[in-house]
């Protein structure tokens, strides 16, 4: 049984059909890339998985539970975590507090009011900051980080929720080549405890880190398989050649 199973997902906005029966299946500790031309419905599918959008038709199953109509907080508590396409770190808070905010989300409100978990979470905050090479900036405001560093901070925040499945929407958008390489390195260790669905334009990046790929075109699944299978697929080559 896969960790995440989305079947027959359709999403209609007025007259626009963004998704038309798309499907996706992600196993435990699998890195799954979601690729396709602009407007093919990648981000819409991600939002349907994370609960930011409710699909018009279709069903999303996560750890054997139907989560199609659950709200984002409910999905987060079930073990799903999303990194937004646009960076959404909290700019006036320090990096430390950004991570703590994500880590403490599961504490009860009473525990929060008496700050019962912050001593206990200190090590975890620092470990995450170290892991993402941000520890020396721990007490600076998040707004002072470079764009690439803000993306890392946000991945760290998404991981702080201890997800079983992490959804990353264009994590390397606007990054330099070197920053992309480092992002790939930073993501590798996650595999020990977490699956990943990643939307990305940079095909080299996605080929390096993903186990399987799903290709979307005009809201439908064009192909799905291992990286080698997708690379050999005629119709996938065609849509990329057509647009190139």
């Amino acid at each position, binding site marked *: 049984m896969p960790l995440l199973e989305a079947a027959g997902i359709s999403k209609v906005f007025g007259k626009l059909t963004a998704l038309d029966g798309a499907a996706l299946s992600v196993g435990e500790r699998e890195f799954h890339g979601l690729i396709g031309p602009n407007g093919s419905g990648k981000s819409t599918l991600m939002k349907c998985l994370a609960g930011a959008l409710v699909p018009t038709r279709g069903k999303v199953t996560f750890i054997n539970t139907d989560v199609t109509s659950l709200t*984002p*907080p409910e999905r987060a508590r079930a073990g799903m975590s999303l990194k937004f396409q646009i960076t959404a770190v909290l700019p006036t808070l320090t990096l430390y507090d950004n991570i*703590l905010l994500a880590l403490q989300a599961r*504490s009860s409100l009473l525990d929060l009011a008496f700050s019962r978990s912050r001593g206990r979470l200190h*090590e975890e905050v620092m470990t995450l900051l170290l892991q993402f090479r941000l520890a020396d900036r721990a*007490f600076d405001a998040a707004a002072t980080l470079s764009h690439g560093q803000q993306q890392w901070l946000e991945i760290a925040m998404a*991981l702080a929720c201890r997800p079983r499945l992490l959804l990353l929407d264009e994590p390397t958008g606007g990054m330099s080549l070197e920053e992309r390489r480092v992002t790939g390195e*930073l993501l590798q260790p996650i595999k020990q405890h977490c699956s990943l669905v990643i939307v990305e334009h940079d095909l080299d990046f996605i080929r390096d880190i993903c186990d399987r790929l799903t290709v979307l075109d005009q809201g439908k699944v064009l192909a799905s398989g291992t990286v080698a299978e997708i690379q050999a697929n005629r119709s996938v080559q065609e849509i990329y050649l057509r647009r190139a």
Partner: protein
Amino acid sequence: MSSTGTGTQPPPHVIEAARSPVMASAIAGRTKVLPILELALLIAASIAPLVLRDYITVYATRVLILCLFALSFDLVWGYAGILSLGQSLFFGTAGYGVALLSRDFGVASIFAVLPAGTLIGFVAALLLAGFLLLGRHPSSVVFVSLGTMTGAYAADRLARGSHYLGGQNGIPSIPPMTIGSHELSEGPGFYYLVLAILVLIYLLSRFLLRSQFGLALAGLRENEQRIAFFGYNVQHLKAIIFAISGAIAGASGSLYAFHEGFVWTNMLGVVMSTQVVLYVLFGSGTLIGAVIGTAIVEGLSFWLSDNYRDIWPIILGVLLLLVILFRPLGLISLVLGERERVGHFGPSLKEKRNAAP
């Protein structure tokens, strides 16, 4: 969650610096203006009745009660980002509530009326929050601000039309509040009582806002949608801070009723709600800013109305506009850096030592 990527570690000295609590707090620690400001104001407020003339002490008591009211608005707007334009609803409802308690049931003991007023404010805010904030989807700022304002307006109209509540005239001649057999009338005694309550509520609010709950509120203010994806129940968080704020407004309203000796419809209405917005303009997002703002606005009104009888509202209005134009974060930002205003929520040095393996 240990890091295993070998090539991804920062240099060892950085790791050392970050792991050591002393260094970490040295990085975080800067000159603290806030505690000095708070202490100076507390001392000034404590000696004020000794040097001021009696009628000014009475006026200052009213200002302290309004400071409490301003704190309640600052909690929801300055900290949680909920624009409540109906804060007077809780202030006024509690005022009317305790006035009725004393008129119809002869209850005036502080140990009964103050908790009663606080409870009335709390319940009223919780009910309103149920309508405005607890929907399945997050409600917009415009919806909440118009909803709360409508609530205040409706309460004002209802009170005006109600014979039981005294209509336009409100409820006059409320007997003085009592502590045991002692009657509290306006003057230094009442002043120190209000100051003690203000300090207590200020400290409780400060404790709450500097806690991890305060961090969740900061997240709520900065990016409500983002923290929902962390798993926070945003609606509950909003309802709780809204109700706490309503309780404080209620406490303030009941003190106001007994201090003035009467309640009238303006206490419920939109004028009172907008007045509290003006107080907090001078320093929203800091508790001390709300207190200073109230003192400045009320002090200026008092002085200007004495010296520039005809044009004082215009002068006050222009001053407020200047603040909005040149100091959007309030006058408090003249002395307080951004970092200290927002604060940080990591563990204190003591907690870190306890947590260290």
